[in-house]
């Protein structure tokens, strides 16, 4: 038996860099997008590196990964990389490799795009595929939304960058709080306690301690220890279900989605900012979530029609105002759109700047 190894950390990235990158590391001069999904990076040495970007569903099986390695072996000196948005990037110093490589990728259904003013691949979370607190299925939503935005992924059809994200509950493992368009799974009812035999599955004191708002109290049912939830204090985080499987938060009838827009992370032009709610609730409608797809399409179409070059959605809304954005999209403005948490008053309009 070998000695058990621990704490060896990640492997050294240098062994995974293509030869042209090793040669020109830190010596890049400029880059350009040649066409949707294809970059050229030129080094100070004059060397040029071409990158082909394909979108992936993030959930990938080993067969797909092996196919990617075949592409890398054939055209990219045996190297490839992934992006923070689950795209795969194939890099080659040979210009003539670009088109056959794209043909090989497209023949297996991999979309080339996601550069510059195209709809980005969607950052997303596990959903019903693998998460215990999810209010929806992230992978399914992404599939439906990207089927609809496919031509916007493979073309530079938008005024500026557009980053999309899906998170399947408000714990937000995905970056939905700072994306141009975000879909957020929401629970609307506190967990239902399954009191039967609860103490056999869960530690009562530690489950009580798990609640961030102190909404859970001990209770007695038929002489046995159980738990009770003060519903008005619950904020639907699912932390108690994490601690105790007898407090499921999933709810077929009440779970659903909300849609948010106008967040960004980049510092370009305006400072980073959070997304704002535009649609407070859409029921789960699997397998194709047509209402969500339509709402996203509406936002994208308004952005296409009214955004100016370089403007992110947030920049466009700064210019045209929220009132006009709601008018153009046709979304209804309700009491749920008005913030009622800490610092809510900062979002009240304390001016006579109005649009009629």
């Amino acid at each position, binding site marked *: 038996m070998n000695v058990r190894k621990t704490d060896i950390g990640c492997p050294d990235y240098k062994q995974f860099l293509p030869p042209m990158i090793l040669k020109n590391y830190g010596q890049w001069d400029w880059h350009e997008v040649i066409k949707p999904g294809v970059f050229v990076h030129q080094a100070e040495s004059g060397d040029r590196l071409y990158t082909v970007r394909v979108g992936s569903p993030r959930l990938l099986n080993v067969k797909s990964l092996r196919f990617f390695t075949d592409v890398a072996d054939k055209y990219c000196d045996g190297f490839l990389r992934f992006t923070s948005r689950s795209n795969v990037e194939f890099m080659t110093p040979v210009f003539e490799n670009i088109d056959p490589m794209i043909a090989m990728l497209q023949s297996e259904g991999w979309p080339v795009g996601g550069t510059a003013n195209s709809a980005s691949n969607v950052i997303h979370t596990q959903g019903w595929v693998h998460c215990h607190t999810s209010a929806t299925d992230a992978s399914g939503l992404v599939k439906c939304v990207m089927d609809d935005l496919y031509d916007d992924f493979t073309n530079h059809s938008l005024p500026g960058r557009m980053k999309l994200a899906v998170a399947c509950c408000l714990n937000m493992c995905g*970056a939905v709080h700072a994306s141009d368009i975000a879909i957020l799974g929401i629970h609307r009812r506190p967990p239902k306690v399954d009191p039967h035999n609860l103490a056999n599955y869960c530690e009562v004191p530690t489950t009580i301690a798990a609640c961030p708002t102190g909404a859970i109290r001990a209770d007695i049912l038929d002489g046995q220890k159980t738990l009770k939830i003060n519903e008005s204090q619950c904020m639907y985080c699912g932390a108690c279900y994490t601690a105790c499987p007898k407090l499921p938060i999933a709810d077929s009838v009440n779970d659903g989605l909300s849609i948010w827009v106008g967040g960004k992370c980049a510092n370009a032009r305006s400072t980073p900012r959070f997304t704002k709610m535009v649609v407070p609730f859409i029921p789960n409608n699997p397998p194709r979530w047509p209402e969500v797809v339509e709402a996203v399409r509406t936002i994208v179409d308004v952005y296409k029609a009214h955004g100016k070059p370089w403007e992110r959605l947030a920049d466009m809304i700064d210019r045209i105002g929220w009132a006009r954005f709601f008018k153009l999209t046709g979304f209804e403005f309700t009491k749920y759109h008005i913030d009622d948490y800490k610092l809510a008053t900062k979002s009240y309009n304390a001016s006579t700047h109005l649009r009629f």
Partner: protein
Amino acid sequence: MSNQAHSSSETPLLDELLKGRWPSFVKEMKEMADTKPMVRDVLRQLEKSYVDKKTHWKHGGIVGVKGYGGGIIGRYSDSPDEFPGAAHFHTVRVNQPAGWFYSSQALRDLCDIFEKYGSGLTNMHGSTGDIILLGTTTDELEPIFSALTEKGWDLGGSGSALRTPSCCVGPARCEWAMFDCLDLCHDITHHYQDEIHRPAFPYKFKIKVSGCPNDCVSAIARADFSVIGTWKDHIQVNQAAMQEYVAKGRNPIKDAVLLCPTKAIDWDGKEIKIDNENCVRCMQCINAYPKALKPGKERGATILIGAKAPIVQGALFSSVLVPFMELEKPYDDLKELLEKLWDVWDDHGENKERIGELVERMGKGEFLERIGIKPDIQMVIHPRENPYVFYDEYYEEVDEK
């Protein structure tokens, strides 16, 4: 494709997601279901979720590999009798290489391990940046860990630990990397193995490293400790290259001048002029004209702290802690700062309190004092508006001279 074989049978709703042009995660799963009974049961369970519109997973909280407090996320089916193959379906987080570069050989090694010891399904990558093996059983955890370490891979972080640091593509393929993001990410990952694998913090702590203010890894929104490249001196201007852009039809008034947030750039038809003292290093003009405009030569990073998602106290962006820090190996200044932060957080943070929430509760001024950093006007958007100031000192009349 072998989709047709299934479409009439077990998962009619999921089969709807085999349609359409975007690559289908259902196809990815079905391809493994042919050889992996566990994936078939996970698909059947997922179909059930699509029917009754709710999840069928439960959280596990104990399983792991010996000695580590993280890297494995326990997951159990809530209907193990109905879906025995999905009874255990734990996640393994594998620490990705900096910049997410792979050789095809290394990726194939990972595939072989994932296929042998688990579902053969992955996420490339998880939200924090790790390689995710989606699904294995408790019994396979030690064997998979041995197989991974044998090939030079280790687990990433989870729980109240330093989470796996991640970085953008950096100087490997970007002219705007203001320091060696990959080296820094790799260095801190190795330097803090104990903090990653043996959780000892009040809650999670994420580090993300972006080479420039475009922030391609969303460090400012997603990391407790955000390292974002910047420069101190003047933007480098190549007037000839600028004129070439204009000759090809580009309009610097529209692409730069009107978009500059501080009106710091001008174009008179022949030359670009930049008021560098008023430039906030937003990157717009550089993004628009990469051949003509480049960041200055005095390069380093801004360090910001405190970003997080909403739970519990509301979402936060990171805010400026150190306006400019030079980042040269062995990154002693950065490590000293990190350890100071962890010390104060360890002493004062409550359970599940992110460092951003501690700063909010304690007040940034007080926090700065505790970590020994002098207040700087660039740490805030503007000075305070409210007059409720708690002064440290005041004098009695008799003290006056």
